[in-house]
Protein backbone atom coordinates (compact mmCIF):
# COMPACT_ATOMS: atom_id res chain seq x y z
CA UNK A 1 0.00 0.00 0.00
CA UNK A 2 2.66 2.50 1.01
CA UNK A 3 4.76 1.66 -2.04
CA UNK A 4 2.33 3.52 -4.27
CA UNK A 5 3.04 6.74 -2.40
CA UNK A 6 6.79 6.27 -2.20
CA UNK A 7 7.22 4.87 -5.68
CA UNK A 8 10.14 7.17 -6.32
CA UNK A 9 12.19 5.91 -3.37
CA UNK A 10 15.13 3.65 -4.07
CA UNK A 11 15.26 0.09 -2.72
CA UNK A 12 17.96 1.27 -0.29
CA UNK A 13 15.71 3.94 1.19
CA UNK A 14 12.88 1.46 1.45
CA UNK A 15 15.05 -0.95 3.41
CA UNK A 16 16.11 1.84 5.76
CA UNK A 17 12.49 2.80 6.35
CA UNK A 18 11.55 -0.86 6.96
CA UNK A 19 14.34 -1.10 9.53
CA UNK A 20 13.22 2.08 11.28
CA UNK A 21 9.69 0.75 11.62
CA UNK A 22 11.06 -2.27 13.39
CA UNK A 23 10.89 -4.67 10.47
CA UNK A 24 14.34 -6.05 11.19
CA UNK A 25 13.72 -6.72 14.88
CA UNK A 26 10.40 -8.35 14.03
CA UNK A 27 12.29 -10.72 11.75
CA UNK A 28 14.89 -11.31 14.47
CA UNK A 29 12.13 -12.11 16.95
CA UNK A 30 10.66 -14.61 14.51
CA UNK A 31 14.00 -16.41 14.17
CA UNK A 32 13.46 -18.88 17.05
CA UNK A 33 10.13 -20.05 15.68
CA UNK A 34 11.45 -20.14 12.11
CA UNK A 35 14.49 -22.22 13.09
CA UNK A 36 12.69 -24.59 15.42
CA UNK A 37 9.69 -25.17 13.16
CA UNK A 38 11.89 -25.21 10.06
CA UNK A 39 14.15 -27.95 11.37
CA UNK A 40 11.80 -29.94 13.55
CA UNK A 41 8.37 -29.53 12.01
CA UNK A 42 8.22 -28.27 8.43
CA UNK A 43 11.34 -29.92 7.02
CA UNK A 44 10.56 -33.38 8.47
CA UNK A 45 7.01 -33.19 7.10
CA UNK A 46 8.22 -32.46 3.57
CA UNK A 47 11.07 -34.93 3.89
CA UNK A 48 8.65 -37.59 5.09
CA UNK A 49 6.73 -37.35 1.83
CA UNK A 50 9.94 -37.34 -0.22
CA UNK A 51 11.38 -40.36 1.63
CA UNK A 52 8.28 -42.40 0.84
CA UNK A 53 9.55 -42.49 -2.75
CA UNK A 54 13.16 -43.32 -1.86
CA UNK A 55 15.27 -46.25 -0.77
CA UNK A 56 17.81 -45.70 2.02
CA UNK A 57 20.81 -47.95 2.48
CA UNK A 58 23.03 -45.76 4.72
CA UNK A 59 26.06 -46.26 2.51
CA UNK A 60 25.35 -44.14 -0.53
CA UNK A 61 22.79 -41.42 -1.17
CA UNK A 62 19.13 -42.47 -1.19
CA UNK A 63 17.84 -43.53 -4.57
CA UNK A 64 14.44 -42.85 -6.15
CA UNK A 65 12.31 -45.95 -6.32
CA UNK A 66 8.97 -44.60 -7.47
CA UNK A 67 6.01 -46.29 -5.86
CA UNK A 68 7.77 -49.46 -4.78
CA UNK A 69 7.65 -48.54 -1.06
CA UNK A 70 3.90 -48.16 -1.32
CA UNK A 71 3.62 -51.43 -3.24
CA UNK A 72 5.66 -53.18 -0.56
CA UNK A 73 3.53 -51.79 2.27
CA UNK A 74 0.22 -52.52 0.54
CA UNK A 75 1.33 -56.08 -0.23
CA UNK A 76 2.38 -56.75 3.38
CA UNK A 77 -0.19 -59.17 4.87
CA UNK A 78 0.37 -57.49 8.26
CA UNK A 79 -1.04 -54.21 6.91
CA UNK A 80 -4.60 -55.55 6.74
CA UNK A 81 -4.18 -56.93 10.28
CA UNK A 82 -2.86 -53.59 11.53
CA UNK A 83 -5.59 -51.58 9.81
CA UNK A 84 -8.24 -53.91 11.20
CA UNK A 85 -6.82 -53.64 14.71
CA UNK A 86 -6.53 -49.86 14.48
CA UNK A 87 -10.16 -49.66 13.34
CA UNK A 88 -11.17 -51.95 16.20
CA UNK A 89 -9.25 -49.78 18.65
CA UNK A 90 -10.87 -46.64 17.24
CA UNK A 91 -14.39 -48.05 17.35
CA UNK A 92 -13.93 -49.36 20.89
CA UNK A 93 -12.25 -46.13 22.00
CA UNK A 94 -15.27 -44.19 20.74
CA UNK A 95 -17.77 -46.64 22.22
CA UNK A 96 -16.11 -46.41 25.66
CA UNK A 97 -14.56 -42.98 25.46
CA UNK A 98 -17.11 -40.80 23.72
CA UNK A 99 -20.34 -41.07 25.79
CA UNK A 100 -18.62 -41.40 29.17
CA UNK A 101 -16.99 -37.94 29.37
CA UNK A 102 -20.11 -36.31 27.97
CA UNK A 103 -22.39 -37.91 30.56
CA UNK A 104 -19.86 -37.26 33.31
CA UNK A 105 -19.58 -33.60 32.34
CA UNK A 106 -23.36 -33.15 32.37
CA UNK A 107 -23.60 -34.75 35.81
CA UNK A 108 -20.62 -32.83 37.21
CA UNK A 109 -22.02 -29.55 35.88
CA UNK A 110 -24.99 -29.86 38.25
CA UNK A 111 -22.76 -30.12 41.32
CA UNK A 112 -22.13 -27.19 43.62
CA UNK A 113 -19.00 -25.10 42.86
CA UNK A 114 -16.78 -26.70 45.50
CA UNK A 115 -17.74 -30.30 44.76
CA UNK A 116 -17.56 -29.57 41.04
CA UNK A 117 -13.94 -28.48 41.40
CA UNK A 118 -13.16 -31.62 43.38
CA UNK A 119 -14.84 -33.83 40.78
CA UNK A 120 -12.96 -32.08 37.93
CA UNK A 121 -9.70 -32.53 39.80
CA UNK A 122 -10.31 -36.25 40.32
CA UNK A 123 -11.51 -36.78 36.75
CA UNK A 124 -8.35 -35.13 35.39
CA UNK A 125 -5.93 -36.92 37.74
CA UNK A 126 -5.44 -39.95 35.42
CA UNK A 127 -4.46 -37.57 32.59
CA UNK A 128 -1.62 -36.23 34.74
CA UNK A 129 -0.19 -39.71 35.43
CA UNK A 130 2.57 -40.37 32.88
CA UNK A 131 1.22 -42.88 30.31
CA UNK A 132 4.13 -45.26 30.84
CA UNK A 133 3.42 -45.42 34.58
CA UNK A 134 -0.29 -45.89 33.95
CA UNK A 135 0.29 -48.68 31.45
CA UNK A 136 2.80 -50.54 33.62
CA UNK A 137 0.48 -50.19 36.63
CA UNK A 138 -2.54 -51.45 34.71
CA UNK A 139 -0.44 -54.38 33.55
CA UNK A 140 -0.28 -55.35 37.23
CA UNK A 141 -4.06 -54.86 37.54
CA UNK A 142 -4.56 -57.10 34.51
CA UNK A 143 -2.69 -59.99 36.17
CA UNK A 144 -4.47 -63.00 34.61
CA UNK A 145 -4.10 -65.19 37.71
CA UNK A 146 -7.02 -65.62 40.07
CA UNK A 147 -5.46 -63.31 42.63
CA UNK A 148 -4.95 -60.52 40.05
CA UNK A 149 -6.50 -57.23 41.13
CA UNK A 150 -9.27 -57.01 38.53
CA UNK A 151 -9.89 -60.74 38.65
CA UNK A 152 -10.34 -60.72 42.41
CA UNK A 153 -12.83 -57.83 42.14
CA UNK A 154 -14.81 -59.74 39.52
CA UNK A 155 -14.53 -62.98 41.47
CA UNK A 156 -16.43 -61.26 44.28
CA UNK A 157 -19.45 -61.04 41.96
CA UNK A 158 -18.88 -64.51 40.57
CA UNK A 159 -17.10 -63.67 37.30
CA UNK A 160 -13.83 -64.71 35.75
CA UNK A 161 -10.95 -65.17 36.02
CA UNK A 162 -10.30 -63.40 32.72
CA UNK A 163 -7.07 -63.65 30.72
CA UNK A 164 -7.13 -59.88 29.89
CA UNK A 165 -4.02 -59.05 27.85
CA UNK A 166 -3.06 -62.70 27.41
CA UNK A 167 -5.85 -63.68 25.01
CA UNK A 168 -6.29 -62.40 21.47
CA UNK A 169 -9.99 -61.67 21.97
CA UNK A 170 -9.69 -59.65 25.17
CA UNK A 171 -6.33 -57.93 24.66
CA UNK A 172 -7.60 -55.01 22.58
CA UNK A 173 -10.63 -54.23 24.78
CA UNK A 174 -8.31 -54.30 27.81
CA UNK A 175 -5.98 -51.80 26.15
CA UNK A 176 -8.90 -49.55 25.21
CA UNK A 177 -10.23 -49.67 28.78
CA UNK A 178 -6.94 -48.29 30.12
CA UNK A 179 -6.68 -45.74 27.31
CA UNK A 180 -10.20 -44.52 28.09
CA UNK A 181 -9.38 -44.20 31.78
CA UNK A 182 -6.24 -42.26 30.87
CA UNK A 183 -7.89 -39.93 28.37
CA UNK A 184 -11.46 -39.31 29.54
CA UNK A 185 -10.47 -36.45 31.87
CA UNK A 186 -9.46 -34.12 29.07
CA UNK A 187 -12.72 -34.55 27.17
CA UNK A 188 -14.73 -34.23 30.39
CA UNK A 189 -13.14 -30.89 31.24
CA UNK A 190 -13.60 -29.52 27.74
CA UNK A 191 -17.28 -30.54 27.74
CA UNK A 192 -17.70 -29.14 31.24
CA UNK A 193 -16.28 -25.76 30.18
CA UNK A 194 -18.69 -25.73 27.23
CA UNK A 195 -21.67 -26.75 29.37
CA UNK A 196 -21.09 -24.04 31.97
CA UNK A 197 -21.09 -21.45 29.18
CA UNK A 198 -24.59 -22.46 27.98
CA UNK A 199 -26.86 -19.46 28.64
CA UNK A 200 -29.22 -20.07 31.59
CA UNK A 201 -32.13 -18.39 29.74
CA UNK A 202 -32.23 -21.34 27.37
CA UNK A 203 -32.88 -23.75 30.23
CA UNK A 204 -35.32 -21.28 31.75
CA UNK A 205 -37.31 -21.09 28.54
CA UNK A 206 -37.29 -24.85 28.02
CA UNK A 207 -38.48 -25.39 31.56
CA UNK A 208 -41.33 -22.91 31.13
CA UNK A 209 -42.32 -24.89 28.06
CA UNK A 210 -42.61 -27.90 30.31
CA UNK A 211 -39.38 -29.68 29.35
CA UNK A 212 -38.13 -32.16 31.95
CA UNK A 213 -34.48 -32.62 32.83
CA UNK A 214 -33.78 -35.32 30.22
CA UNK A 215 -35.52 -33.27 27.57
CA UNK A 216 -33.49 -30.18 28.52
CA UNK A 217 -30.26 -32.16 28.20
CA UNK A 218 -31.34 -33.48 24.81
CA UNK A 219 -32.85 -30.30 23.38
CA UNK A 220 -30.73 -27.58 25.01
CA UNK A 221 -27.39 -28.90 26.30
CA UNK A 222 -26.43 -31.21 23.42
CA UNK A 223 -27.38 -28.81 20.58
CA UNK A 224 -25.41 -26.05 22.32
CA UNK A 225 -22.38 -28.36 22.47
CA UNK A 226 -22.55 -29.66 18.91
CA UNK A 227 -19.37 -27.89 17.71
CA UNK A 228 -17.37 -29.08 20.70
CA UNK A 229 -18.78 -32.59 20.43
CA UNK A 230 -17.85 -32.80 16.78
CA UNK A 231 -14.35 -31.50 17.40
CA UNK A 232 -13.82 -33.96 20.24
CA UNK A 233 -15.12 -36.86 18.14
CA UNK A 234 -12.70 -36.12 15.32
CA UNK A 235 -9.79 -35.47 17.65
CA UNK A 236 -10.51 -38.80 19.36
CA UNK A 237 -10.54 -40.59 16.01
CA UNK A 238 -7.30 -38.91 14.92
CA UNK A 239 -5.68 -39.72 18.26
CA UNK A 240 -6.91 -43.31 18.25
CA UNK A 241 -5.60 -43.92 14.74
CA UNK A 242 -2.09 -43.03 15.92
CA UNK A 243 -2.11 -45.05 19.14
CA UNK A 244 1.34 -46.35 19.99
CA UNK A 245 2.45 -46.47 23.63
CA UNK A 246 -0.43 -48.66 24.85
CA UNK A 247 -0.09 -51.58 22.43
CA UNK A 248 3.71 -51.25 22.40
CA UNK A 249 4.08 -51.44 26.18
CA UNK A 250 1.10 -53.63 27.07
CA UNK A 251 1.49 -56.40 24.54
CA UNK A 252 4.09 -55.44 21.93
CA UNK A 253 1.42 -56.15 19.32
CA UNK A 254 0.53 -59.67 20.52
CA UNK A 255 -0.97 -62.10 21.25
CA UNK A 256 -1.02 -63.40 17.65
CA UNK A 257 -0.77 -59.81 16.35
CA UNK A 258 -4.17 -59.06 17.91
CA UNK A 259 -2.98 -55.61 19.05
CA UNK A 260 -0.62 -54.77 16.19
CA UNK A 261 -1.68 -51.24 15.19
CA UNK A 262 -0.65 -49.19 12.16
CA UNK A 263 1.67 -47.05 14.27
CA UNK A 264 3.29 -50.16 15.75
CA UNK A 265 3.81 -51.57 12.24
CA UNK A 266 5.39 -48.26 11.19
CA UNK A 267 7.68 -48.40 14.21
CA UNK A 268 8.71 -51.95 13.34
CA UNK A 269 9.44 -51.00 9.72
CA UNK A 270 11.59 -48.06 10.79
CA UNK A 271 13.30 -48.98 14.02
CA UNK A 272 13.38 -52.79 13.94
CA UNK A 273 13.74 -53.35 10.21
CA UNK A 274 15.54 -50.12 9.26
CA UNK A 275 13.29 -49.78 6.20
CA UNK A 276 12.74 -46.02 6.30
CA UNK A 277 11.12 -46.00 2.86
CA UNK A 278 8.37 -48.41 3.89
CA UNK A 279 7.87 -46.62 7.21
CA UNK A 280 7.41 -43.21 5.62
CA UNK A 281 5.20 -44.65 2.88
CA UNK A 282 2.92 -46.12 5.54
CA UNK A 283 3.04 -42.79 7.40
CA UNK A 284 1.97 -40.94 4.24
CA UNK A 285 -0.92 -43.36 3.67
CA UNK A 286 -2.21 -42.97 7.23
CA UNK A 287 -1.70 -39.21 7.05
CA UNK A 288 -3.79 -39.02 3.87
CA UNK A 289 -6.68 -40.74 5.64
CA UNK A 290 -6.34 -38.46 8.66
CA UNK A 291 -5.94 -35.36 6.49
CA UNK A 292 -9.24 -36.20 4.83
CA UNK A 293 -10.80 -36.34 8.30
CA UNK A 294 -9.17 -33.05 9.27
CA UNK A 295 -10.48 -31.42 6.11
CA UNK A 296 -13.96 -32.61 6.98
CA UNK A 297 -13.45 -31.21 10.45
CA UNK A 298 -12.42 -27.80 9.10
CA UNK A 299 -15.33 -27.61 6.69
CA UNK A 300 -17.94 -28.58 9.25
CA UNK A 301 -16.65 -26.48 12.14
CA UNK A 302 -16.34 -23.46 9.87
CA UNK A 303 -19.91 -23.87 8.73
CA UNK A 304 -21.13 -24.29 12.28
CA UNK A 305 -19.22 -21.45 13.84
CA UNK A 306 -20.61 -18.96 11.33
Amino acid sequence: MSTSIHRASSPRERIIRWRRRGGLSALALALPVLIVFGYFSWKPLVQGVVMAFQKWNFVSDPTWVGLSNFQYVLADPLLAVAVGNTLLFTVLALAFGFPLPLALAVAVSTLRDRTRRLASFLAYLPVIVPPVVAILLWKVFYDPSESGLFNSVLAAVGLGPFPWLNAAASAMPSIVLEATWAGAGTATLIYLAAITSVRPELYEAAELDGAGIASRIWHVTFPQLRTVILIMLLLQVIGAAQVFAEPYLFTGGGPQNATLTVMLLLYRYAFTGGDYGAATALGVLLALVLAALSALYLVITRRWSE
Partner: protein
Amino acid sequence: MSRAIAEPESRGLLSRHDLRRPGTSILVRTIHVLVLVGVVVAGAGPLAWLAFASLNTTQEVLRDPFAVWFHADEWSNYTAAFGTIDIGRYLLNTVVFAVGACLANLIVSTSAAYVIAVLRPRWGGVLSGAILATLFLPGIVSLVPLYLTVLDLPPFGVNLQNTYWAAWLPAAANAFSILIMVGFFRSLPRELIEAARLDGAGNLRMLWSIVLPLSRPILGVVALLSIIAAWKDYLWPSLVLADASVQPISVALPIVGKITDLSVFLAALFLATIVPVVLFMVFSKQILSGVGASSGLKD
Protein backbone atom coordinates in the same frame (compact mmCIF):
# COMPACT_ATOMS: atom_id res chain seq x y z
CA MET B 1 -21.98 -15.31 45.01
CA SER B 2 -25.48 -16.61 44.50
CA ARG B 3 -25.73 -17.27 48.19
CA ALA B 4 -25.80 -13.56 49.15
CA ILE B 5 -29.12 -12.86 47.52
CA ALA B 6 -31.28 -15.83 46.71
CA GLU B 7 -33.26 -14.17 43.94
CA PRO B 8 -31.05 -13.92 40.79
CA GLU B 9 -29.72 -17.46 41.13
CA SER B 10 -27.22 -18.37 38.40
CA ARG B 11 -28.81 -21.61 37.31
CA GLY B 12 -27.55 -24.39 35.11
CA LEU B 13 -29.40 -27.41 33.82
CA LEU B 14 -31.34 -27.80 37.08
CA SER B 15 -33.59 -25.19 38.66
CA ARG B 16 -34.71 -24.71 42.26
CA HIS B 17 -38.06 -25.97 41.19
CA ASP B 18 -36.56 -29.29 40.04
CA LEU B 19 -34.85 -29.82 43.35
CA ARG B 20 -37.98 -29.12 45.33
CA ARG B 21 -39.73 -32.09 43.76
CA PRO B 22 -38.92 -35.06 46.05
CA GLY B 23 -38.57 -37.65 43.27
CA THR B 24 -36.19 -35.51 41.19
CA SER B 25 -34.25 -34.46 44.22
CA ILE B 26 -33.56 -38.06 45.26
CA LEU B 27 -32.60 -38.99 41.69
CA VAL B 28 -30.23 -36.05 41.35
CA ARG B 29 -28.65 -36.78 44.71
CA THR B 30 -28.20 -40.46 43.84
CA ILE B 31 -26.50 -39.52 40.58
CA HIS B 32 -24.25 -37.06 42.39
CA VAL B 33 -23.18 -39.66 44.93
CA LEU B 34 -22.54 -42.23 42.17
CA VAL B 35 -20.51 -39.74 40.16
CA LEU B 36 -18.43 -38.71 43.16
CA VAL B 37 -17.81 -42.31 44.20
CA GLY B 38 -16.95 -43.07 40.58
CA VAL B 39 -14.36 -40.30 40.20
CA VAL B 40 -12.83 -41.09 43.59
CA VAL B 41 -12.47 -44.80 42.75
CA ALA B 42 -11.34 -44.27 39.15
CA GLY B 43 -9.37 -41.07 39.62
CA ALA B 44 -7.67 -41.49 42.96
CA GLY B 45 -8.06 -45.27 43.44
CA PRO B 46 -5.22 -46.53 41.22
CA LEU B 47 -2.75 -43.99 42.60
CA ALA B 48 -3.76 -44.71 46.18
CA TRP B 49 -3.39 -48.45 45.55
CA LEU B 50 0.05 -47.83 44.03
CA ALA B 51 1.10 -45.76 47.04
CA PHE B 52 0.11 -48.50 49.48
CA ALA B 53 1.18 -51.46 47.36
CA SER B 54 4.64 -49.96 46.99
CA LEU B 55 5.03 -50.39 50.76
CA ASN B 56 4.35 -54.13 50.66
CA THR B 57 6.54 -57.09 49.75
CA THR B 58 6.09 -58.67 46.33
CA GLN B 59 4.54 -61.78 47.90
CA GLU B 60 1.98 -59.70 49.79
CA VAL B 61 0.98 -57.78 46.64
CA LEU B 62 0.62 -60.93 44.59
CA ARG B 63 -1.20 -62.96 47.23
CA ASP B 64 -3.97 -60.46 47.96
CA PRO B 65 -3.87 -57.10 46.14
CA PHE B 66 -6.68 -55.78 48.35
CA ALA B 67 -4.85 -56.37 51.60
CA VAL B 68 -2.08 -53.90 50.75
CA TRP B 69 -3.73 -51.21 52.89
CA PHE B 70 -3.11 -53.14 56.10
CA HIS B 71 0.61 -53.75 56.11
CA ALA B 72 2.13 -50.81 54.28
CA ASP B 73 5.47 -50.65 56.04
CA GLU B 74 8.03 -52.02 53.59
CA TRP B 75 10.09 -48.81 53.24
CA SER B 76 13.06 -50.83 52.03
CA ASN B 77 11.38 -50.83 48.58
CA TYR B 78 12.17 -47.14 48.31
CA THR B 79 15.73 -47.59 49.54
CA ALA B 80 16.15 -50.24 46.87
CA ALA B 81 14.54 -48.04 44.19
CA PHE B 82 17.06 -45.30 44.88
CA GLY B 83 19.92 -47.73 45.48
CA THR B 84 19.88 -50.68 43.10
CA ILE B 85 17.92 -49.20 40.20
CA ASP B 86 19.16 -45.64 40.68
CA ILE B 87 15.75 -44.05 40.16
CA GLY B 88 17.11 -40.70 41.37
CA ARG B 89 19.25 -40.34 38.27
CA TYR B 90 16.30 -41.01 35.95
CA LEU B 91 14.18 -38.51 37.85
CA LEU B 92 16.95 -35.93 37.54
CA ASN B 93 17.21 -36.64 33.80
CA THR B 94 13.45 -36.09 33.50
CA VAL B 95 13.74 -32.77 35.34
CA VAL B 96 16.50 -31.63 32.97
CA PHE B 97 14.42 -32.71 29.96
CA ALA B 98 11.21 -31.09 31.25
CA VAL B 99 12.74 -27.79 32.38
CA GLY B 100 14.66 -27.39 29.13
CA ALA B 101 11.57 -28.22 27.08
CA CYS B 102 9.60 -25.70 29.10
CA LEU B 103 12.18 -22.91 28.56
CA ALA B 104 12.46 -23.67 24.85
CA ASN B 105 8.67 -23.66 24.60
CA LEU B 106 8.38 -20.32 26.38
CA ILE B 107 11.06 -18.63 24.26
CA VAL B 108 9.66 -19.85 20.96
CA SER B 109 5.98 -19.35 21.75
CA THR B 110 6.37 -15.89 23.31
CA SER B 111 8.52 -14.45 20.52
CA ALA B 112 6.38 -16.04 17.81
CA ALA B 113 3.09 -14.91 19.35
CA TYR B 114 4.50 -11.41 19.89
CA VAL B 115 5.39 -11.14 16.21
CA ILE B 116 2.05 -12.58 15.05
CA ALA B 117 -0.36 -10.88 17.46
CA VAL B 118 1.34 -7.57 18.38
CA LEU B 119 3.89 -6.56 15.72
CA ARG B 120 1.79 -7.95 12.86
CA PRO B 121 4.28 -7.68 10.00
CA ARG B 122 3.06 -8.27 6.46
CA TRP B 123 4.32 -11.85 6.49
CA GLY B 124 2.67 -12.57 9.84
CA GLY B 125 -0.32 -14.25 8.23
CA VAL B 126 1.88 -16.67 6.30
CA LEU B 127 3.83 -17.48 9.45
CA SER B 128 0.77 -18.18 11.58
CA GLY B 129 -0.76 -20.22 8.77
CA ALA B 130 2.38 -22.35 8.50
CA ILE B 131 2.38 -22.90 12.26
CA LEU B 132 -1.34 -23.70 12.42
CA ALA B 133 -1.03 -26.16 9.55
CA THR B 134 1.20 -28.39 11.71
CA LEU B 135 -1.70 -28.87 14.11
CA PHE B 136 -3.71 -30.56 11.41
CA LEU B 137 -0.97 -32.57 9.75
CA PRO B 138 -0.47 -35.81 11.65
CA GLY B 139 2.93 -36.18 13.25
CA ILE B 140 3.45 -39.73 11.99
CA VAL B 141 4.75 -38.56 8.60
CA SER B 142 7.58 -36.68 10.26
CA LEU B 143 8.64 -39.23 12.89
CA VAL B 144 11.31 -40.98 10.81
CA PRO B 145 12.69 -37.85 9.06
CA LEU B 146 12.73 -36.03 12.40
CA TYR B 147 14.79 -38.88 13.80
CA LEU B 148 17.19 -38.68 10.86
CA THR B 149 17.42 -34.89 11.27
CA VAL B 150 18.47 -35.32 14.88
CA LEU B 151 21.05 -37.98 13.95
CA ASP B 152 22.67 -35.68 11.41
CA LEU B 153 21.66 -32.05 11.82
CA PRO B 154 22.14 -30.29 8.50
CA PRO B 155 24.20 -28.37 7.49
CA PHE B 156 26.50 -28.95 10.46
CA GLY B 157 26.35 -32.75 10.46
CA VAL B 158 26.05 -32.78 14.25
CA ASN B 159 24.53 -35.83 15.92
CA LEU B 160 22.20 -34.70 18.68
CA GLN B 161 21.21 -38.19 19.77
CA ASN B 162 21.61 -38.74 23.52
CA THR B 163 21.94 -35.00 24.10
CA TYR B 164 18.98 -33.17 25.62
CA TRP B 165 18.84 -30.82 22.63
CA ALA B 166 17.31 -33.70 20.66
CA ALA B 167 14.33 -33.60 23.02
CA TRP B 168 14.22 -29.87 23.85
CA LEU B 169 14.18 -28.47 20.34
CA PRO B 170 11.40 -30.65 18.85
CA ALA B 171 9.35 -30.04 22.01
CA ALA B 172 9.60 -26.31 21.29
CA ALA B 173 7.99 -26.78 17.87
CA ASN B 174 4.62 -26.76 19.62
CA ALA B 175 1.87 -25.02 17.68
CA PHE B 176 -0.50 -25.39 20.59
CA SER B 177 1.61 -23.22 22.95
CA ILE B 178 1.84 -20.55 20.26
CA LEU B 179 -1.92 -20.68 19.75
CA ILE B 180 -2.55 -20.11 23.47
CA MET B 181 -0.09 -17.21 23.55
CA VAL B 182 -1.48 -15.59 20.39
CA GLY B 183 -4.97 -15.75 21.87
CA PHE B 184 -3.79 -14.00 25.00
CA PHE B 185 -1.66 -11.35 23.25
CA ARG B 186 -4.59 -10.46 20.99
CA SER B 187 -6.66 -9.66 24.07
CA LEU B 188 -4.12 -7.13 25.38
CA PRO B 189 -5.39 -3.53 25.08
CA ARG B 190 -4.16 -2.18 21.77
CA GLU B 191 -3.95 1.39 23.15
CA LEU B 192 -1.17 0.31 25.49
CA ILE B 193 0.93 -0.85 22.55
CA GLU B 194 0.17 2.31 20.51
CA ALA B 195 1.02 4.54 23.47
CA ALA B 196 4.34 2.77 24.00
CA ARG B 197 5.08 3.07 20.29
CA LEU B 198 4.40 6.84 20.43
CA ASP B 199 6.78 7.09 23.36
CA GLY B 200 9.43 5.67 21.08
CA ALA B 201 9.70 2.20 22.59
CA GLY B 202 11.36 -0.31 20.27
CA ASN B 203 9.97 -3.79 19.60
CA LEU B 204 12.17 -5.51 22.17
CA ARG B 205 11.51 -2.93 24.85
CA MET B 206 7.74 -3.23 24.33
CA LEU B 207 7.96 -7.00 24.66
CA TRP B 208 10.08 -6.82 27.78
CA SER B 209 8.39 -4.01 29.73
CA ILE B 210 4.77 -4.14 28.59
CA VAL B 211 3.72 -7.45 27.05
CA LEU B 212 5.65 -9.89 29.25
CA PRO B 213 4.68 -8.38 32.63
CA LEU B 214 1.02 -8.52 31.58
CA SER B 215 1.35 -12.14 30.43
CA ARG B 216 2.53 -13.81 33.62
CA PRO B 217 -0.58 -15.96 34.11
CA ILE B 218 -0.53 -17.31 30.56
CA LEU B 219 3.23 -17.88 30.69
CA GLY B 220 2.57 -19.98 33.78
CA VAL B 221 -0.06 -22.06 31.98
CA VAL B 222 2.22 -22.70 28.99
CA ALA B 223 5.13 -23.53 31.31
CA LEU B 224 3.05 -26.01 33.34
CA LEU B 225 1.53 -27.69 30.30
CA SER B 226 4.94 -28.08 28.64
CA ILE B 227 6.54 -29.52 31.79
CA ILE B 228 3.73 -32.05 32.20
CA ALA B 229 3.84 -32.90 28.48
CA ALA B 230 7.58 -33.57 28.68
CA TRP B 231 7.12 -35.67 31.81
CA LYS B 232 4.51 -37.78 30.00
CA ASP B 233 6.38 -38.11 26.70
CA TYR B 234 7.54 -41.59 25.75
CA LEU B 235 8.02 -42.45 22.07
CA TRP B 236 10.30 -39.57 21.06
CA PRO B 237 12.59 -39.64 24.11
CA SER B 238 12.81 -43.44 23.80
CA LEU B 239 14.35 -42.87 20.35
CA VAL B 240 16.68 -39.95 21.06
CA LEU B 241 17.44 -40.26 24.79
CA ALA B 242 18.12 -43.99 24.74
CA ASP B 243 21.42 -43.98 26.64
CA ALA B 244 20.99 -44.77 30.35
CA SER B 245 22.90 -41.62 31.31
CA VAL B 246 20.25 -39.33 29.77
CA GLN B 247 17.12 -41.52 29.90
CA PRO B 248 14.05 -39.83 31.36
CA ILE B 249 12.05 -41.98 33.77
CA SER B 250 9.33 -42.90 31.24
CA VAL B 251 11.95 -44.44 28.97
CA ALA B 252 13.77 -46.16 31.81
CA LEU B 253 10.74 -47.74 33.54
CA PRO B 254 9.79 -50.38 30.93
CA ILE B 255 13.44 -51.49 30.75
CA VAL B 256 13.95 -51.46 34.52
CA GLY B 257 10.66 -53.29 35.05
CA LYS B 258 11.91 -56.41 33.30
CA ILE B 259 14.75 -56.94 35.76
CA THR B 260 13.28 -55.61 39.00
CA ASP B 261 11.33 -57.13 41.84
CA LEU B 262 7.64 -56.12 41.63
CA SER B 263 7.56 -54.33 44.99
CA VAL B 264 10.62 -52.21 44.20
CA PHE B 265 9.22 -51.54 40.75
CA LEU B 266 5.93 -50.30 42.23
CA ALA B 267 7.96 -47.89 44.38
CA ALA B 268 9.70 -46.67 41.22
CA LEU B 269 6.32 -46.20 39.48
CA PHE B 270 5.05 -44.17 42.40
CA LEU B 271 8.16 -41.99 42.44
CA ALA B 272 7.68 -41.31 38.72
CA THR B 273 4.21 -39.85 39.32
CA ILE B 274 4.99 -37.64 42.32
CA VAL B 275 6.29 -34.59 40.45
CA PRO B 276 3.43 -34.21 37.94
CA VAL B 277 0.79 -35.04 40.55
CA VAL B 278 2.17 -32.51 43.05
CA LEU B 279 2.42 -29.87 40.29
CA PHE B 280 -1.20 -30.63 39.46
CA MET B 281 -2.31 -30.40 43.09
CA VAL B 282 -0.63 -27.03 43.55
CA PHE B 283 -1.64 -25.51 40.20
CA SER B 284 -4.88 -27.41 39.53
CA LYS B 285 -6.83 -24.18 39.05
CA GLN B 286 -4.52 -22.91 36.29
CA ILE B 287 -4.17 -26.30 34.62
CA LEU B 288 -7.90 -27.12 34.69
CA SER B 289 -8.86 -23.72 33.30
CA GLY B 290 -6.14 -24.04 30.66
CA VAL B 291 -7.54 -27.39 29.50
CA GLY B 292 -11.11 -26.09 29.53
CA ALA B 293 -10.12 -23.02 27.55
CA SER B 294 -8.36 -25.05 24.88
CA SER B 295 -11.70 -25.93 23.31
CA GLY B 296 -12.62 -22.27 22.93
CA LEU B 297 -9.43 -21.59 21.00
CA LYS B 298 -10.35 -24.04 18.29
CA ASP B 299 -13.73 -22.54 17.49
